């Protein structure tokens, strides 16, 4: 933290200087998507201006430059999450596509009728619906582990539901709706002991703390580029080598084939190329590479400290507002604050905050089963990033106090 220069960091993000509804933008919707630093914008721009060629297929100069840049991005991402090799990194459109790819593949090569897919009640719809589809295709069954009232996996219930029939465990590292962090290593160890393959949804962990997939020992890990200061349309699927080899192809077409023949049939390349049919989002991958460079240079120790400071500042002030309740109000969490206010619907909170230039998310956060667990239609969610300030947190608190008065 010694060299933490917040104003300098903020000046890396052009959008943070903008105004909304005549007020300075206060961007607290980082769990939906993070803002992008100039370094990322410039990397994408440079690709299109100076490096634009298609990868893996040209003998010409630009094709080689683009291929090198794309491959370098894969190396950066592998280092970013502690993957043993860049070959364990598949570029996808986002975490959603990553989970679909794995669920689709496991339905074909691993799941059988009567098997169980163990999820938790706190999953994002993207980590529920693909498994419901996989269950339908394979005859397997989705089983749901309960969570504790404070918003973490109920390990007792999880252990009870984990058994010889459990073939897949898929769960969230840090909750998008609550910010709570699950004991991933412990859950993965238990799942492996039961013989299950494990997917970890890292959409909300990768932006906030150092993830090491080798230490976690998950079989699959997914995250979205746009939540880690990268572009939209690019995401990452990490898979252990043996699992990427085992999974069947997902989409098919150019770039992922070994040989195509009407007479002798078609062969496929090895992972990761066998999962990257067609021209990929080259600019997106390069932008993501620049984004993880940016986060590495900023440093996760400093990021964690800054975000902890923001949380320590805002949480007690929120709790003081009459009728305001924070969900998942625990000590160890990412800086996501999900709350309701008595008698005030989250959408009304969101609309009024917006008139003050404050961006939050209001609604069910693509986690309807979780909202049902708490018996609420939705929450308002203020999600912070390392570039937010305590003054912005104060603006949120002041606006919420005003809302309290309007609806009194």
């Amino acid at each position, binding site marked *: 933290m010694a060299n933490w220069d917040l104003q300098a960091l903020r000046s890396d993000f052009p959008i943070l200087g903008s105004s909304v509804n005549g007020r300075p933008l206060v961007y607290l919707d980082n769990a939906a998507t993070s803002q992008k630093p100039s370094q990322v914008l410039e990397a994408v721009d440079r690709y299109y201006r100076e490096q634009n060629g298609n990868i893996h297929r040209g003998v010409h100069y630009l094709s080689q430059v683009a291929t090198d840049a794309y491959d370098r991005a894969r190396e950066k991402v592998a280092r970013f999450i502690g993957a043993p090799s860049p070959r364990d990194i598949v570029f996808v459109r986002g975490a959603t596509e990553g989970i679909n790819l794995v669920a689709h593949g496991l339905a074909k090569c691993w799941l059988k009728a009567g098997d169980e897919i163990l999820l938790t009640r706190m999953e994002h719809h993207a980590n529920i619906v693909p498994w419901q589809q996989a269950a339908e295709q394979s005859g397997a069954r989705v089983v749901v582990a309960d969570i504790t009232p404070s918003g973490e996996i109920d390990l007792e219930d999880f252990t009870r539901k984990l058994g010889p029939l459990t073939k897949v465990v898929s769960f969230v590292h840090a909750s998008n709706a609550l910010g709570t962090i699950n004991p991933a290593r412990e859950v993965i160890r238990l799942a492996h002991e039961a013989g299950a393959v494990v997917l970890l949804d890292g959409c909300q962990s990768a932006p906030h703390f150092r993830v090491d997939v080798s230490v976690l020992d998950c079989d699959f890990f997914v995250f979205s580029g746009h939540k880690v200061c990268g572009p939209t349309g690019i995401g990452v699927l990490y898979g252990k080598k043996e699992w990427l080899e085992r999974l069947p192809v997902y989409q098919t077409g150019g770039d992922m084939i070994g040989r195509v023949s009407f007479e002798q049939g078609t062969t496929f390349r090895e992972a990761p190329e066998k999962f990257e049919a067609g021209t990929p989002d080259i600019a997106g991958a390069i932008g993501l590479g620049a984004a993880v460079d940016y986060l590495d240079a900023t440093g996760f120790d400093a990021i964690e400290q800054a975000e902890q400071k923001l949380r320590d500042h805002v949480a007690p002030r929120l709790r003081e507002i009459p009728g305001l309740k924070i969900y998942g109000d625990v000590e160890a969490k990412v800086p996501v604050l999900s709350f309701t206010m008595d*008698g*005030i*619907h*989250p*959408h*009304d909170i969101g*609309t*009024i905050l917006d*008139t003050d230039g404050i961006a939050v998310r*209001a*609604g*069910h956060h693509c986690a*309807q089963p979780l*909202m049902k667990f708490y018996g609420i*239609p*939705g929450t308002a969610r203020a999600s912070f990033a390392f570039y937010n300030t305590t003054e912005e947190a104060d603006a949120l608190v002041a606006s919420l106090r005003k809302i309290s008065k*309007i*609806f009194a």
Partner: protein
Amino acid sequence: MSELADLYQEIILDHNKRPRNYREMPECTCSAEGNNPLCGDEVKVSVRLDNDTLSDVAFQGQGCAISRASASMMTGKTKGRTASEARALSGQVRDMLLGPEAAPPPEVGDLAALSGVRKFPARIKCAMLPWHTLEAALAGQATATSESGD
């Protein structure tokens, strides 16, 4: 602030806090459930039709102040009207929110308080959901969604 004051007028806040005709109606002749898949708002509208007249209208559900106030005012305003009058009123509300900017027609009465919603495009669906649902009920459909129409 003035746009915000237009949106959350006193009458809207009052209907939100004390919604009228918020109840079940076991003796209803038709009802429909409306939902907004984007935000999860849900409303159930129940109607008792005597011949062609809406002799009773009630609603239930969970939603924001705009959708609750819209539903609450709708029940009071459509009670005693014929089905075609109720549909015409729904059309006037839609025009008020989505049509060219104009002074709300006198027929809409208190519903003119909803006109502030037109400055908040993201919220127009909230205001319209009860009306879509009423129209669905009158048409004999069981469900309505904010994605239809508009």
